[in-house]
């Protein structure tokens, strides 16, 4: 009986089977037929983007770049997404032909937007292999020169060469966005892109601020090692520097305010800086803060020589000859050569003072995260907050708790405003936005997608804060042809349409960028305007010169 | 007065072949304390008849017409809730296969407790169990076994349990639906003895559904013979066994081996019961009936009283 059924079954089944297989073949076949075969003589680019959202909406950007470049008709772009860690590793391995990167300033000076990229030493970390001796000397002059007019000329030259060589292509400058509940005040998003927690007042009737972000400490909280934005942000709020840049200011020469130092002076030749220190400050373990600790911090941070550490990257060693402590409350810095942004450098996280007891001076070994011991994981002290809880799983932060530092010098003036801060770390922008929308958190900062910002701007139950943001730029790997040829690089630069990008991906909430020096900063010239936006004709002619098409 | 009164009950099964009358215009009435034996070949509708008194005819079967009265209540039209109260409380029912009639995952005790609780809320578990034990005891089961699971009992034992459950609430009417069919002869005898004993001691009103003439002969006061969903003959046990009138009854009796009668020729009934989907015209038995004459093939014989016995056969119809 069963057998009979099966016999019938087989005829029917074989029928269905065959038809299914036919459908299969049709689908696959049909698909491949419709694939346009790449034309001969096209420039084929392997274009990489960061797929885990470390830079806002990288995936969207990639799609846009692709379509823009392919508008020329002479370029085919193959997109490759890579998560942030491997993206970094690929960068160091010089294995990406073209990729997009971003930058937050260390210290507020044009130099910090030029030297790290265009100097053959500074630019080394990008691994794109750009090297131009003329450029190097110009940068050296510019950074050691104090005269605004002369600096202006120097930077103008630099930016012209930047356009000619096009080693990298500035694309846009985003905004820093913070979203809070309406009764949260004191959020200051200024040109430094610092987040000053101690100025922020929690929602009415609370002394705790619940802060959400997608950031996560990349390496550690050790000023000698950390290079990431969030690391700097935490150092700023947990540690202390000699001087600070006045929150909300435009970070001009006169915008420096006392930190651990009460006053400071510079010698006429610009080679000696003397700082007088606050007296009677105590580390949280009771030890007094003296000039010796300052000397210790700088010597240590340099001695550790962490490969990714800022001290190497920014060349502290080439700059600072010595740090001396003539008295308990005075430090003297002696420089090897004049350095215009020195004060700015002193306000940068790399120059923060560590607690010697928690930060041993053992070269190559920074203070790392220790499970269950937030204090031992954090060499920073003296700041407005103490890190009392730090949950981290497999190199990703889950929750942090900050409590007011009883020894903080600002307590008398009523700072920090929020006595406690709970930091929630979200896996992606959406989770963060959803948490903010559903009122789980009082404040959301980095990274929110433009679509979220837009919907939140129209939400009466939320307050949106706007400030200057990171810059992003395209890096073309000069180790891989055809990008060893400036013409090819210019062709790409010309083909990109910054306006379209800004309006599509960021819904207008970003501004096109034509120089590595961000808009509105001193000495900026819109060099890349000369190549135009979405300038297909130029791009095509350049490519044809190179024999494509 | 009559305890149970069934008037021209019709039970139909709706099958793909159409409607078939499993019970066709059957009328019966049970006096208190009497025992009725309901006999017939399997599939003649006797079980259906029994179940319809509880309105438990399994789907797709349903009661089409007729009237069943239990005491004052109209069984067919009363509410489900009323019906529920009648089941087990006023009518106890014993099923054919004891092996599958108990909930395998419940202890015997639980069966008793939950039944007593549903019908007599407020009885404490202990009392309920106590009653259960008493019942079991009188049925010859050790009371402590009330904590056992069904699968720990033999068939006969389970049937005793079933009887116990049926009697637990002292129903007015007990219906035993082939209570011994699935049991071996020895156990069968025990169960029958038990039933007889209970019948005496409890003055049970009992409907004994079976195809086993022997059992009926020794237990029943009256016997109803069913054929193909209809009553063929209905009378006092003794009369009916003395001089069976309906040819079918005669055939049935002859087909039973009788140890007392030596050298008796066993006869069997030729042919098979009719397919109720398309029943033959006239008397349903005529295709197998030795005495059939043309009238039998045309009109259906009514059930008529003929010296003390009701019989549906044209042979006794003096017209």
């Amino acid at each position, binding site marked *: 009986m069963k057998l009979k059924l099966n016999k019938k079954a087989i005829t029917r089944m074989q029928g269905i089977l065959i038809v299914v297989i036919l459908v299969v073949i049709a689908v696959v076949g049909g698909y491949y037929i419709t694939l346009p075969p790449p034309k001969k003589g096209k420039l084929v680019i392997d274009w990489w983007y960061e797929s*885990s959202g470390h830079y806002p909406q990288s995936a969207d950007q990639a799609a846009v770049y692709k379509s823009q470049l392919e508008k020329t008709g002479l370029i085919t772009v193959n997109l490759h997404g*890579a*998560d*942030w*860690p*491997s993206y970094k*590793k*690929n960068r*160091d*391995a010089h*294995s990406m032909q073209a990729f997009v990167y971003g930058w937050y300033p260390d210290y507020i000076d044009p130099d910090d937007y030029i030297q790290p990229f265009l100097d053959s030493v500074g630019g080394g970390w990008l691994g794109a292999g750009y090297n131009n001796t003329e450029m190097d000397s110009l940068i050296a002059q510019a950074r050691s020169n104090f005269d605004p007019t002369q600096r202006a000329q120097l930077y103008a030259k630099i930016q012209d060469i930047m356009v000619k060589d096009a080693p990298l292509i500035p694309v846009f400058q985003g905004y820093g966005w913070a979203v809070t509940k309406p009764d949260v005040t004191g959020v200051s998003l200024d040109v430094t892109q610092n987040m000053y927690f101690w100025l922020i007042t929690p929602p009415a009737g609370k002394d*705790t601020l*619940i802060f959400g972000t997608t950031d996560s400490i990349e390496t550690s909280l050790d000023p000698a090692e950390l290079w990431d934005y969030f690391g700097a942000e935490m150092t700023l709020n947990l540690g202390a520097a000699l001087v600070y840049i006045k929150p909300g200011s435009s970070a001009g020469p006169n915008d420096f305010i006392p930190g651990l130092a009460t006053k400071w002076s510079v010698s006429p030749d610009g080679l000696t800086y003397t700082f007088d220190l606050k007296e009677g400050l105590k580390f949280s373990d009771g030890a007094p803060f003296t000039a010796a600790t300052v000397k210790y911090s700088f010597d240590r941070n340099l001695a550790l020589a962490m490969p990714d550490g800022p001290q190497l990257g920014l060349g502290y060693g080439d700059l600072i000859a010595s740090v001396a402590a003539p008295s308990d409350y005075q430090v003297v810095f002696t420089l090897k050569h004049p350095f215009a942004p020195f004060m700015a450098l002193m306000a940068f996280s790399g120059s923060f003072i560590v607690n010697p007891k928690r930060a041993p001076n053992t070269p190559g070994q920074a203070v*790392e*995260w220790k*499970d269950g011991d937030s204090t031992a994981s954090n060499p920073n002290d003296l700041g407005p907050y103490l890190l009392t809880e730090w949950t981290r*799983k*497999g*190199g*990703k932060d889950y929750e942090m*708790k900050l409590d007011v530092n009883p020894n903080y010098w600002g307590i008398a003036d009523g700072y920090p405003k929020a006595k406690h801060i*709970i930091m*929630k770390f*979200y*896996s*992606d922008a959406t*989770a963060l936005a*959803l*948490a903010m*929308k*559903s009122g*789980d*958190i009082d404040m959301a900062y980095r990274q929110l997608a433009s679509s979220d910002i837009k919907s939140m701007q129209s939400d009466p139950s939320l307050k949106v804060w706007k400030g200057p943001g990171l810059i992003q730029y395209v890096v073309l790997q000069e180790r891989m042809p055809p990008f060893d040829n400036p013409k090819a690089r210019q062709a790409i630069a010309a083909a990109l349409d910054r306006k379209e990008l800004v309006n599509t991906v960021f819904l207008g909430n970003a501004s096109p960028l034509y120089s590595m020096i961000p808009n509105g900063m001193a000495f900026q010239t819109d060099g890349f305007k000369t190549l135009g936006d979405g300038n297909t004709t130029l791009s095509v002619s350049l490519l044809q010169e190179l024999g494509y098409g | 007065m009559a305890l149970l009164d069934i008037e021209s009950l019709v039970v139909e099964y709706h099958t793909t072949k159409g409607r078939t009358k499993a019970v066709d215009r059957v009328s019966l009435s049970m006096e208190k304390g009497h025992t009725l034996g309901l006999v017939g070949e399997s599939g003649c509708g006797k079980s259906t008849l029994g*179940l319809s008194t*509880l309105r*438990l005819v*399994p789907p797709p079967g349903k009661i089409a017409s007729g009237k069943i009265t239990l005491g004052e209540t109209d069984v067919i039209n009363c509410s*489900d809730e009323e019906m*529920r*109260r*009648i*089941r*087990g*409380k006023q009518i106890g*029912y014993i*099923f*054919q296969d004891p092996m*599958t*009639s*108990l*909930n*395998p*995952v*419940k202890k015997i005790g639980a069966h008793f407790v*939950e039944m007593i609780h*549903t*019908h007599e809320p407020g009885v404490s578990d202990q009392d309920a169990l106590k009653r259960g034990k008493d019942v079991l005891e009188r049925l010859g089961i050790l009371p402590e076994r009330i904590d056992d*699971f069904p*699968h720990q009992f033999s068939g006969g034992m389970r049937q005793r349990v079933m009887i116990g459950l*049926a009697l637990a609430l002292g129903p007015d009417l007990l219906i035993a639906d082939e209570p011994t069919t699935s049991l071996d002869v020895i156990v069968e005898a025990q169960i029958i003895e038990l039933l007889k004993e209970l019948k005496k001691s409890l003055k049970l009103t009992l409907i004994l559904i079976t195809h086993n003439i022997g059992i009926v002969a020794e237990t029943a006061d009256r016997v109803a013979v069913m054929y193909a969903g209809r009553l063929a003959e209905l009378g006092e046990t003794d009369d009916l066994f003395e001089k069976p009138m309906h040819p079918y009854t005669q055939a049935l009796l002859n087909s039973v081996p009788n140890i007392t009668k030596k050298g008796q020729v066993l006869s069997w009934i030729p042919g098979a019961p009719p397919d109720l989907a398309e029943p033959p015209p006239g008397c349903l038995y005529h295709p197998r009936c030795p005495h059939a004459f043309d009238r039998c093939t045309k009109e259906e014989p009514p059930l008529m009283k003929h010296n003390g016995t009701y019989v549906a056969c044209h042979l006794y119809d003096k017209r």
Partner: protein
Amino acid sequence: MSLRSYVITRILLTIPMIILLLTFVFLIVRILPGDPASLHFEKQVDPQLLQQFKHQLGLDKPIPVQFVDYLVGLFRGDFGKSMQDFSPVSQQIFSAFPATLELAIWATMWMMSIGIVLGVQASRHYNSAQDHSIRVFGTASYAIPVFFLGEVMIMIFAIYLHWFPAGDRIYPGMTPVGLTFGDFHFATGLFVIDSILEGNVQKLLMSIRYLLLPSLTLGLVLCGIFIRLTRGNMLETSQLDFVTAARARGLRERTVVYGYALRNAFLPILTMMGLQFAALLAGAVLTETTFSWPGLGRFLVDRISFRDYTAIQGVVVFFGILVAVVSLAVDILYAYLDPRIRF
């Protein structure tokens, strides 16, 4: 055979299964793509660094040695080191597990209750419109990607109606501390239980509020199989004599349906629950990602984006062992529940 010997044999059967499974995962990570370490670096790293890296993870030893270490380690509850920061994966697994467990428990409750109730309904109104619509619903529920359902849920209940939070486990800083007197702390990591232990009603309600959407989503996607199973078994058991007998004893319809028909249909449903546990975990991975639920699933997905193969191996192995143990437990429970196996 006696219950005891049954249990023992069942356990003995589980052990080789687990070993096989561990081997399988081990092979996937070691053999399948080549060398996980260099893969971690996208094959772009100087050999010296790679060597050191491998050494720290014990990946430089010969495969058989690694295998032994791995098994011994697992036996001691060591799930290997993370490629990210060389921290022991077991720490993270155990700290993330309660979240997943809580989600799983609640999802199971949804899945069972929805599945069984609908299944019973369908079987009671066999072949009616209700029956058919329930069956269609059941079939459709297989076909829905759990994260799609999750997104829809969020869209409706969190974005538009603002009834429930869109993700996470509890309001920041509200994590229940569990039982505390003096220096003694005891927390299960299951927030509902912990908040009860803490005796904090607000936290209790809150953790339930956060649990509702994710668990319901997961439960809905998995309830289909139970609808079908319950329906089928109910249809069978309802035919059985003891159900009719129960009716004949005048038991209430509820008792008959749930106490007799369902009670006897329940054992296969229970086994299916054991089988479904795997599906439950798989679903949890996606659900957790959708609702940013800080459990094992989210941890696994994090690890993927970090190319942290040792951690991935750890989590996967943990899942495997978990499933094996649970199905074992379910089978044993089955044996206890079904008296017929008791001799």
